[in-house]
């Protein structure tokens, strides 16, 4: 088989892969994703199986029987746990747009860029051996195939790698893979870091792997031998081989088996490529379910023939051929050219798949979590001023891919030959296992802090390096073997593979033990030493409680910043490219029901959304950095709290005021209603008053008219009658006049239109004057008038004429109701408290209790039911009362005829006001 043919077929296969990827990408862009099936997802997970599985397992089986198997049992068992774990990781990753392991860890521990960077470094260094392993496998298999039909197989001796590097086929393999990866994964930037084409290609190559391996397996089992049973039967006959059939050969120890199981459980999730495929590239949560059993099924299927092939190869070749190559050399030895080529392609496929996904994942991490954060912090790079940086991101990624692959090659040259493939791979597994405490701790323990994570990772990494990596160099001759055998600086306790004297563990178990101890120990100790700060606690909450928190896209739990869309849009354009940024913003605007992107409200939600988008391109730590530079973030400081409180206080005050107003309103309404009722009442009273007044007026008019008419009609009325009638007319006229006057007076007083004077008076003087004026009346009636005045003056402020009016009213009433002859009226003035009291007491019939209020009513007069109708208007007392009350006094009557006491005492009081300065 010529080199050209092999290379041609290889490139043809790679081209097929590329074509599939391209087609799948095109379909994805058109919205009809090919990979949206759970079986594709499950197959893509099989990228876990690399040339390690393809070649290395057989090699391992040849040494330790089923000891190769824990690496696959581990993932199977892990799938059982993954129902919860993976789902949680998926949700968190989607919600926070986490695009790599580094992103995940950085985001969880307070968006720490330092942590992201550390994880990236560990990941790169840890995975480099794994890449070296692929290169070794491919170049080795290539070399073997080239010598077909001769089996020129390199033994453990490093024959071929002694070739200078520029001739070394491994280098070219490396470069080819690097270029291929660049074509695969860095054609453009995707905010979600998804590569549909890559996933499709991986799924395809998983099938190819399985097919090729199964083909070999079948060939060996049924082509060379008579079935698996035949192989085993023959193996039993050879004592060396027989032991491989038993548990005794399996890794040699329980601890080894357990260690491998554990470390593979971690790796199936935490290897960068696994994380990429399982979490980042995941299209839908529902795919997870099927993958949980399909993937283990795949593992089972691809491993069934491993032991038979190993045994078969040993039977054929014994120890002369490197067992890692049995899958290839067995067909070759039996002149199966086609099959050998198929096997080679299968191996190439496995290697390619691994390198592509792994380096893409790693380059993403390097770009987002290592280089960009550093670059953005260096102002002299002027990155903030550039309008579009997407080209830069792609460039960084491409360079990273090349560098990583070359690192893999370097490791291959330095240390690759000393180890079997599996052993190299396990070094990477142990490295990746260092992520387990921080990641699982981060998922389930809110107490993990950034410093704890840093401490744990660093400690674990250092121990790993010391106990596995350095020894690997030592075993390859780049470090003195003394280091291995006598410990660092000659200190026995620091023997890298027997640290502190711990023996009996194989090197992986040993490394795991110490590194996990250091890692978990440091993580716990440092995390618990200090409480998480606000940001860490916030992120911890979001991660650990991810199932309970409703993750709505755009939700902004912890941003309190604001930024205008004019600031955010250029930022997004810069890192996502104009088209994608615009599309994303438009869809967000539509979701919010806003017509145009420009009208989006500049709130915390928008900021969070923008940050999410950026995180897809830059990683969350860098995204936060960029956003922070643009956004005016207001930490919820005292002022803001006060503002919020203020607002709340204002709102409460307003609502309180509102309540008060409405209360006042209802009160006012009530009052209005009452006033209305009163007005209606008064209206009625007015009507009554008017009707009464008109009645009172008409009564005297009746006599006046009647007599007047009669006098006019009959001139022959005699003189006596004539004089009588005229007298009545005159009297009635006077009565009428008096009535009209009083009515007007009362109306004026009641309506407040009366004119009041405020004179400084002495009550004694007023009373005296009034009695003198009525003296004549009393004399005519022969009623005794008794005047009792005090020594001291009784100064009041009142209207003199009005007071006289009151006195006249009272006196004339007294005179009216006094019995003649024995009638006696006592008029007195006295001082009582701060008031002057004037009393007019007669010894008439008195006024019954029931009538005492009535007499003060308008037009009502006492004595209706006894003596004839008294002369008078019935308005005197009401007017008097009004007058007295106007000056702050009261007018009452004391009388109790029912108890036998005769007479009525009308008295009024006025407040005494001392003479003011004149």
């Amino acid at each position, binding site marked *: 088989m010529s080199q050209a043919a092999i290379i041609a077929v290889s490139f043809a296969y790679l081209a097929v892969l590329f074509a599939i990827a391209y087609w799948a990408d095109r379909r994805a862009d058109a919205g009809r994703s090919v990979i949206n099936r759970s079986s594709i997802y499950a197959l893509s997970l099989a990228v876990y199986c690399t040339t390690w599985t393809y070649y290395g397992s057989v090699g391992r089986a040849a040494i330790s029987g089923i000891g190769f*198997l824990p690496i696959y049992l581990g993932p199977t*068992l892990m799938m059982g746990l993954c*129902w919860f774990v993976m789902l949680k990781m998926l949700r968190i990753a989607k919600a926070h747009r986490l695009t790599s392991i580094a992103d995940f860890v950085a985001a969880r521990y307070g968006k720490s860029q330092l942590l992201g960077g550390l994880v990236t470094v560990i990941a790169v260094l840890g995975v480099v051996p794994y890449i070296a392993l692929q290169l070794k496998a491919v170049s080795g298999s290539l070399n073997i195939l080239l010598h077909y039909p001769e089996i020129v197989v390199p033994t453990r001796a490093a024959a071929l790698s002694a070739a200078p590097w520029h001739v070394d086929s491994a280098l070219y393999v490396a470069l080819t893979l690097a270029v291929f990866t660049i074509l695969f994964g860095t054609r453009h930037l995707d905010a979600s870091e998804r590569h549909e084409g890559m996933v499709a290609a991986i799924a395809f190559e998983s099938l190819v792997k399985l097919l090729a391996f199964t083909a070999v397996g079948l060939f060996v089992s049924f082509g060379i031998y008579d079935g698996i*049973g035949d192989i*085993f039967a023959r193996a039993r006959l050879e004592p060396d081989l027989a032991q491989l059939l038993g*548990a005794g050969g*399996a890794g040699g120890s*329980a601890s080894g088996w357990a260690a491998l199981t554990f470390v593979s459980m971690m790796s199936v999730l935490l290897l960068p490529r696994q994380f990429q495929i399982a979490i980042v590239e995941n299209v839908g949560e529902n795919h997870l379910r099927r993958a949980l059993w399909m993937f283990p099924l795949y593992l089972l299927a691809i491993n069934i023939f491993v032991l038979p092939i190993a045994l078969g190869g040993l039977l054929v070749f014994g120890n002369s051929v490197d067992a890692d190559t049995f899958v290839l050399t067995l067909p070759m030895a039996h002149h199966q050219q086609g099959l050998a080529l198929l096997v080679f392609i299968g191996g190439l496929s496995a290697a390619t798949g691994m390198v592509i996904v792994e380096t893409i994942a790693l380059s993403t991490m390097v770009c987002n979590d290592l280089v960009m954060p550093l670059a953005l912090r260096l102002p002299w790079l002027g990155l903030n001023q550039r309008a579009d940086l997407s080209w830069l991101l792609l460039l960084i990624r491409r360079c990273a891919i090349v560098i990583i692959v070359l690192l893999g090659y370097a490791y291959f040259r330095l240390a690759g030959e000393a180890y079997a493939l599996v052993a190299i791979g396990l070094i990477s597994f142990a490295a990746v296992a260092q992520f387990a405490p921080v990641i699982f701790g981060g998922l389930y323990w809110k107490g993990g802090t950034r410093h704890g994570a840093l401490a744990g990772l660093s400690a674990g990494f250092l121990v790993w390096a010391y106990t596995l990596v350095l020894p690997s160099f030592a075993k390859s001759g780049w470090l003195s073997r003394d280091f291995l055998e006598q410990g660092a600086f000659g200190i026995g306790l620091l023997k890298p593979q027997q640290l502190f004297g711990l023996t009996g563990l194989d090197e992986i178990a040993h490394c795991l033990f110490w590194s996990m101890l250091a890692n978990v120990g440091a993580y716990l100790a440092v995390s618990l030493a200090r409480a998480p700060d606000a940001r860490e606690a916030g992120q911890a909450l979001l991660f650990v409680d991810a199932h309970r928190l409703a993750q709505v896209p755009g939700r902004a739990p912890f941003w309190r910043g604001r930024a205008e869309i004019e600031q955010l849009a250029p930022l997004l354009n810069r890192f996502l490219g104009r088209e994608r940024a615009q599309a994303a913003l438009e869809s967000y605007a539509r979701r919010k029901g806003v017509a145009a992107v420009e009208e989006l409200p500049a709130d915390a939600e928008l900021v969070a959304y923008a940050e999410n988008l950026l995180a897809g391109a830059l990683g969350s730590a860098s995204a936060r950095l960029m956003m922070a530079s643009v956004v005016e973030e207001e930490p919820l400081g005292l002022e803001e709290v006060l503002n919020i409180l203020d607002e709340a206080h204002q709102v409460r005050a307003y609502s309180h005021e509102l309540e008060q107003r409405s209360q006042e309103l209802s009160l006012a309404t009530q009052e209005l209603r009452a006033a209305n009722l009163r007005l209606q009442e008064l209206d009625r009273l007015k009507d009554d008053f008017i009707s009464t007044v008109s009645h009172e007026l008409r009564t005297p008019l009746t006599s006046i008219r009647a007599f007047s008419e009669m006098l006019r009609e009959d001139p022959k009325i005699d003189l006596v009658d004539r004089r009588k009638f005229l007298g009545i007319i005159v009297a009635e006229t006077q009565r009428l006049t008096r009535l009209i006057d009083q009515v007007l007076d009362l109306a004026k007083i009641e309506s407040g239109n009366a004119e009041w004077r405020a004179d400084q008076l002495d009550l004694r003087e007023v009373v005296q004057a009034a009695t003198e004026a009525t003296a004549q009346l009393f004399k005519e009636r022969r009623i005794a008038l008794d005047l009792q005045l005090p020594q001291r003056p009784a100064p009041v402020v009142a209207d003199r004429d009005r007071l006289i009016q009151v006195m006249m009213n009272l006196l004339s009433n007294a005179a009216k109701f006094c019995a003649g002859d024995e009638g006696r009226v006592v008029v007195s003035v006295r001082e009582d408290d701060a008031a002057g009291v004037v009393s007019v007491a007669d010894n008439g019939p008195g006024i019954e209790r029931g009538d005492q209020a009535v007499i003060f009513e308008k037009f009502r007069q006492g004595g209706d039911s006894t003596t004839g109708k008294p002369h008078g208007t019935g308005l005197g007392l009401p007017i008097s009362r009004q007058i007295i009350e106007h000056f702050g006094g009261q007018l009452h009557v004391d009388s109790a005829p029912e108890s036998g006491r005769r007479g009525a005492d009308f008295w009024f009081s006025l407040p005494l006001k001392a003479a003011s300065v004149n």
Partner: protein
Amino acid sequence: MNRQRLTGSRLAAIFLLGSVLLNYPLLSLIDSQADVLGVPALYAYVFAAWGGLIALMVAVIERRGG
């Protein structure tokens, strides 16, 4: 969501079962010299157990309408 939790718990139980079945204390019990249908007992056991676990997982996951 309860059915999810049930499925998850069942799968976790399968995990525990597998950890026991496919780990050393049990493995060392298997007589390495015996053959089952021409296949070494250990090999047969491991693959059978493995297959069985997977079958259990299928049953738990693909179960419709609990």
